[in-house]
């Protein structure tokens, strides 16, 4: 998307535009724009923060309960406190490798309001005592990279970054790093590996919790772009004002990337915890209804990794813990709506294929399992499915994510929700994420799978599970199938 198109984020009445106030401002990305427009005056928060002690800054963030916006929803202030005391240097790493299918909020934050992010970085660096910040921006976002680079240059020139910021003892460098295009690098330890110049592959936690052993084995705080973008507004206002929106557990607003079969897809800043999916889909200022003439079939509440929700869950509020208990996650705030024209099997394949292609190849179950899932789904769609394939899919999935997988309740079949998160045989959650569309689709739309298998299964007259339509090169398949 080109920067001249300006999808101004709409905010409901009475809701502050915490992070999106400059989305519609043509020069909001410049230093002049940042200091003269939006819901607060740019770099005022920094001035205030520099008069506070780092501990005070941290406690404000902790008191406000600024939840991480990258996916896990962990409170940023608490995370900052995980740095082992007295260990230096420390680093702030900004995770701008937004690449979850359906998510595009950080891109706008970086393209439209890079100074807001930079100011957030400076506040965080001051709070934890970091002298260096690494801004890792996804490889496929050249516009965001350019905007951030330009903003960094402006801020350096204005004495807002670098040595003795605003005449104080506080000095920080911000390094912009361009990713090379790998979804997995959105995982914080893989991002750190990539930043160190290695192949982006996750590290095992423990022992490599970034706060203790992160970048170059030093204490490292990895924060999402949106998380940090919340800070300038917070310090220009107050903890009370921040907490006045949303709920006790999930205060503040969230950027939601709404896509799919709604009349008005886009980015919306909504109050956390009080807005429901119904509000999001139907309100005129948000989705403005499911595609006219169609009805909701299912939706993904938090990006491609999240288990699916169905019409029964439409009245759930956008609140992380609640959604987790209902079998999915709010994740990175990407809501994908699918109406009744969507083929559940095809949708599952689309999502699984993404994970199969983006698997870094480190852990066996993810490397081999996601591809296997993709191949089975493709085979079913191609008309070569076997009746045993549904159970096979579920069992392959179980070998990536053992035990009951999170899934939404199904009142019509009297099935309860299985809460998030899934268990995993892998280091990071990428492999288990591929299981979400499979279990979600099979649990609710098993008949669609069965229909595709029966439909083309013309020769399969036997009830033997393995006597089915031979695949095109069946000989080699059969030969290869036996150990």
């Amino acid at each position, binding site marked *: 998307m080109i920067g001249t198109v300006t999808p101004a984020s709409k905010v409901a009445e009475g809701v502050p535009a915490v992070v999106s106030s400059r989305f519609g401002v043509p020069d909001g990305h410049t230093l002049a724009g940042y200091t003269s427009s939006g819901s607060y005056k740019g770099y005022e928060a920094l001035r205030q923060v520099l008069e506070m002690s780092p501990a005070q800054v941290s406690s404000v963030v902790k008191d406000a309960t600024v939840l991480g916006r990258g996916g896990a929803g962990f409170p940023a202030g608490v995370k900052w406190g995980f740095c082992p005391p007295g260990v230096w240097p420390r680093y702030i790493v900004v995770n701008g490798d937004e690449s979850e299918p359906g998510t595009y909020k950080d891109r706008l934050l970086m393209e439209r309001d890079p100074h807001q992010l930079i100011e957030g970085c400076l506040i965080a660096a001051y709070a934890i005592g970091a002298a260096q910040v690494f801004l890792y921006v996804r490889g496929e976002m050249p516009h965001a990279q350019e905007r951030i680079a330009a903003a960094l240059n402006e801020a350096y020139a204005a004495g807002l970054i670098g040595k003795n910021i605003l005449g104080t003892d506080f000095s920080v460098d911000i390094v912009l790093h361009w990713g090379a295009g*790998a979804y997995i690098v959105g995982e914080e330890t893989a991002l750190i590996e990539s930043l160190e110049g290695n*192949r982006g592959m996750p590290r*095992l936690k*423990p*022992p490599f919790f970034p706060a203790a052993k992160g970048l170059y084995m030093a204490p490292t705080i990895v924060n999402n772009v949106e998380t940090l973008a919340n800070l300038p507004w917070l310090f220009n206002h107050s903890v009370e004002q921040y907490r006045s929106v949303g709920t006790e557990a999930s205060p503040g607003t969230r950027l939601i990337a709404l896509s799919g079969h709604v009349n008005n897809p886009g980015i919306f800043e909504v109050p956390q915890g009080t807005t429901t999916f119904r509000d999001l889909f139907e309100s005129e200022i948000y989705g403005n209804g499911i595609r006219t003439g169609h009805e909701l079939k299912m939706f993904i509440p938090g990006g491609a990794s999240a288990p699916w929700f169905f019409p029964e869950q439409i009245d759930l509020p956008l609140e992380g813990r609640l959604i987790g208990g209902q079998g999915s996650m709010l994740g990175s705030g990407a809501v994908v709506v699918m109406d009744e024209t969507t083929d559940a099997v095809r949708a599952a394949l689309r999502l699984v294929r993404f994970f*199969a*292609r*983006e*698997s*870094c*190849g*480190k*852990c*066996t*179950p993810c*490397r*081999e*399992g*996601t*591809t*296997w899932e993709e*191949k*089975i789904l493709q*085979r079913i769609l191609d008309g070569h499915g076997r009746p045993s394939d549904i159970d*096979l899919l579920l*069992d392959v999935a*179980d*070998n*990536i994510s*053992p*035990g009951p997988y999170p899934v939404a309740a199904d009142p019509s079949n009297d099935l309860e929700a299985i809460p998030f998160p899934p*268990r*995993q*045989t*892998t*280091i990071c959650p990428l492999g288990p994420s591929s299981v979400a569309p499979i279990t979600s689709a099979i649990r609710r739309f098993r008949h669609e799978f069965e229909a595709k298998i029966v439909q083309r299964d013309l020769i399969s007259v036997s009830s033997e599970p393995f006597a089915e339509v031979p*695949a095109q*090169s069946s000989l*080699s*398949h*059969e030969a*290869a*199938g*036996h*150990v």
Partner: protein
Amino acid sequence: MKQRAMSEKPRKIEITDPVTITVDGREVTAQNGELLIDACERNDAYIPRFCYHPRMNPVGMCRMCLVEVDTGRGPALQPSCMIPVAAEMVVDTKNEQVSKAQDGILEFLLANHPLDCPVCDKGGECPLQDQTMAYGPGESRWVEEKRHYEKPIAISETVYLDRERCILCDRCTRFAKDVAGDPLIHFIDRGSNTEIATFPDEPFSSYFSGNTVQICPVGALTAKPYRFRARPWDLEEVESTCTGCSVGCRITVQSSRNQVLRFQGVDSDPVNWSWLCDKGRFGFEAINSEERLAEPLMLSSDGTLIPARWAEALNAAADAIRAADPTSVAVIGGAQLTNESQYAWAKFAKGIIGTDHVDAQLGDGLAAEVVLGLPGATIDQVCAPGSTVLYMGPDPKEELSVLYIRLKHAAQEDGVQIIELSPAASGLSPYASSSLHYRPADLPKLVEALLAGELPDQGLPGIDAAEFTKASQALLAAEQNLHVVIGRANLAESADCVAVAASAVHQAVPGATFLSALRRANLRGALEAGLTPGMLPGRSSLAEHGQAWKELWGSVPSTAGMDTTQILQAAAASKVDVLILLGADPLADFADRSLARRGVAGARTVISLDRFLTASTRQADIVFPVAGFAECEGTHTNLEGRVTRLNQKVTPPGTARTDWMIAAELAALLGKDLGVERDAHELWDELTAHSAVHSGVSSAALDHPDAADGLLLDLGPSPFVTPVAPHVAPQSSYSLRLIVNRTLYDQGTEIHHCDSSSALAPTASVRLSPADAAPLGAEDGTQVTVSSPHGSITAALIVDSGVPKGSAVLRHNLEGADPGLLIDSADVVCEIRVEVS
């Protein structure tokens, strides 16, 4: 023996911080912080694995070692190779969840595996095969097309990669990067398309590439010298010690039908940790060479060597020795022999013939009193955490490759500080905490200055003041933990330079211990056995302890004899009647080429004991074919002074005999008795009974099960005479000083007869610093002429920033240019000039 071979058992540890954990319902004791996978295995709960290797950092990649671990927060599947043991941990390695997960992993690994076991080298010793038998479902549910790749591709001259078989465990890549320091292979692409690859146009040209074949848990990596040569179940094996250099890596010798087919590294904790260099690993090819000498040869009347009967050759040799005055008989070589053969030849030469002109070194080592006299250090001591190493030896990557691996590990993983003093950058330099490159012959001055803590006022050529201060402070701070590695970093420089420097450290830091890094395999054994002038076995000096050995042997020489340089000088002056070469090839190995030629030509009768026809053997009058490695029993002493057993696996070619037998036969023909009737054990028993140094390494002690990694000789110091600093004449019109060092692959006899390695030797070149190359207007590839007062040679130039200004580097024994033509062994340094040809 077979259990030790190829084993990847957890390292032996002493439990100093015990914690109690529960494994499968049993309470067991483990070391706090050790890896769970090791703790479980040590307590009889083996956990299957592919990527974990006890000598490499874990990555938790294959996921086969998932077990259920409860640390108080409820049981969860965790990779046991990444989890440090902590008190109260409850582990289940076998329950239903664990089995399901492990079975699932195995099915995933086999999904794309080609299952071409019948034609795979690894079949029969394959961890994937074994674990498939022990775990996992009997049948695969995978019905899709498998991954296909070109089978196999060569990733180096010796290693082939079959990407279809690869299970992407990161063992080879981790080894290359972390252990060898040659990160030339890596993963490319993603997901199930991930594969191992080299960089474009850059082969996996590591000196250690063969290790990746050994540790590959499937048949993805295979080695050219072994491919399709045998099935594992047809191999017989014995454990032995590699004699490719003096490190003394423990190996298994594997053979089939009386032919050695493979060496594999054995995890010897004090030495090689299961790693081998490729020269050692693939060196077995020389054993099977068609060119091995299989019968004695004698010079015929037309000047050619023709086959002879043993009796004929032995009689001729005995006649020559008998006819000669004892002091005109000289023996050069013997460093490749077993300890027993060395003792036999020391006794034969010194006790029976009566000559002390015996030298196992070819002017490329250090005086025996330096090697034996300084207090000794083991590799483990040098590499122990907290150690400071003053490294004054040759490039370890080129000459003592597995010692390099140990030093690199010590520096990188255990925080050992290495202060490297060398004439030019080496393979060790990147890991040294400071690296000073001195001008040839300046080492004594540099060490003196380092110990004094300040540079001389005028400085030292090429020594940076800041780097000097750093090195000096580290050296002076070391005191109790200082370990000094000494050797010959420059063959064109007098050995006295290193000896003086070592002596200065010995005097300044009395607690410092020394490791002599001399390349020849059993040189330490030869010196301990008395194959050196002025000494008798067990570090006895001829002058002081002659009487004791005279009582045993009947006689000993009356005065100290000559070293190799002096022997060759005497021979050149026709003062040597019989020159015996014990596996020595002075024409190729002695640094001063002219003297070697004149010496070998000047000796009246040359008797050679060798496995091959070498340049020197071709000049001999009588040639005895000898049994080599894996063809005879015996013991070996590595550079530390560690004695290990060498075991016979195959019979020698033709009628070749072991070296000690030839000494015994000749003694008998001279009417004397060498004191050996049946086998080499008698020689060892005689030596260990009479040498205090050897008293702890008797046959019985070596056969004790705890002595599998060998036993150390007494390493305590012996009397040590401080050498005199050599005088260096001021710089002449020759503006540069010559550095001659070795590469792993050269034209040496051994490597020359290894089909797969012989082509790896580079051609000769001259290396100059950019500062010295620029004024010549020369660049890489320019033909330059190097001249010294003694000769000149021409070779291609390589501009190398690792060479300091004022020096030039040439490699020993490569095709194309012979630095030996420039050297006069009488000079302390070799001064040269370089001009564009």
